[in-house]
């Protein structure tokens, strides 16, 4: 069983390295928390209708039918770039939701282990799938028809997420204001 102990230490060192990396941002003060709650409603979906139009499958088919191979290739490449941008936006949405949950958890007197466990698992799953998709898109192994579906789905999803995140953010901000007005000392948890 010596292997178990050595493997455990190796795993611990990997985890430690991950945990000690500088986080994107820290839930250190009221300013950050308020800013996060305030931003929860802001989304990149404002320009999505335009982007969707640019990604329509008809345009690509038209170029292909007219026999412009260079333009067709360029268009495909650019569409892939747009899909990657969408994925990044999706990741940002996910991260913002996680940040929102983190602030709420930091300010709450008690946490539900099942909720927290589920969130960790979702984060692991999402990160894995996201990285896999990014690699596939970069490598060009993602089929064109899936790329079309992907961009379509993401644009629809982004609109739905905008509404949901805005609602959650507004409610959390109201709760934070209420908490700070009750004791008059702000929402700084440190």
């Amino acid at each position, binding site marked *: 069983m*010596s292997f178990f*102990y050595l493997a455990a*230490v190796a795993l*611990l*060192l990997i*985890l*430690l390295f991950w*945990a*000690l*990396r500088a*986080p*994107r*941002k*820290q*839930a*250190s*003060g009221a300013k950050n928390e308020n800013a996060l709650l305030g931003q929860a409603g802001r989304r990149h979906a404002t320009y999505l209708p335009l982007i969707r139009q640019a990604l329509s499958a008809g345009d690509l088919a038209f170029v292909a039918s007219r026999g412009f191979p260079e333009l067709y290739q360029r268009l495909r490449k650019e569409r892939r770039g747009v899909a990657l941008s969408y994925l990044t936006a999706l990741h940002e949405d996910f991260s913002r*939701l996680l940040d*929102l*949950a*983190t602030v*709420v*958890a*930091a*300010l*709450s*007197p*008690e*946490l*539900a*282990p099942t*909720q927290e466990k589920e*969130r*960790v698992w*979702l*984060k692991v*799953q*999402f990160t894995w*799938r996201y990285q896999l*998709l990014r690699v596939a898109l970069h490598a060009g192994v993602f*089929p064109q*028809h*899936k790329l079309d*579906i*992907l961009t379509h*789905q993401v644009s629809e*999803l982004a609109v*739905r997420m905008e509404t*949901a995140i805005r609602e*959650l953010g507004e*409610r*959390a901000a109201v709760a*934070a204001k209420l*908490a*700070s007005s009750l*004791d008059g*000392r*702000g929402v700084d*948890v*440190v």
Partner: protein
Amino acid sequence: MISVYGRATMPSKMLDLQTSQQFGWNLSIFLRAFLLCLLIFHRNIRSFPYFAAYLVANLTKAVILHLAYGAWGMDSWPSYFVAWGSEAGLACLRALAVAELCRRLLGHYRGIWSLAWRVLLSCAILIVGYSAIDAASAPQHSLAQGVIAANRAIELAVAVVIVVLFAFLRHYQVASDPAIRSLALGFCAYSCVSVVNFTILDKFINAYLPVWNFLGVFTYLGCLTLWAWALRKAIAVPPFGSPSLFAKAVYQRISPEVNAQLRTLNDQLSQFWRTEEPQP
């Protein structure tokens, strides 16, 4: 430091080792005293009572062992029991010091801490339990191997607890004092090296003993240096307790909704791979 060779003898072995190792050992005693002085000088003893107690006990152990070896000799049973008894006491204080650091880092967040301490304690119990079962199921039993197994279990539990603590800090994006993080990191680094050291020792007791001693001394020296660096300035420790908290109901309402949204995003990603080409 401990050594295990037949009837596990203790720091006595250090005295017979090479000059560098002796120098390292003496330097570590000096550093322990220096650390204690730093804690007193910066008035951090109140904030870290268990860490201070651990350092005092560590110094006291060296004195007790010196007296015991002088009175009964290095390979006698009384010396053996004094040595391992003091080591067990020290392990308890170390566990308390680690728990203190965990509370200092997460205790300001009441909700997170209420979850974290349960998780950390469960991890420690699981590790110690597993190690006990592992040691009991070994084909051969000896006192030396029992001692190795016990020490390795404690070190692994300490390492796991600190790594999980850092994972909590990262996951909840908790701002923490770098000095306290360094103290925890020192414990973790020493414990990780000790687990590897004990595991190799378990396999090759006789051949590995000098290397084991050497590594143990110098790892601890590195750990003490890190602590001394962390404690070079006074650590400002705010009192526990957070006045501005959401009502419990806020978390209970928002958290499931956030999870539901996260699940939706996750499902979307998983469906990307499953989509089929539309039939003409």
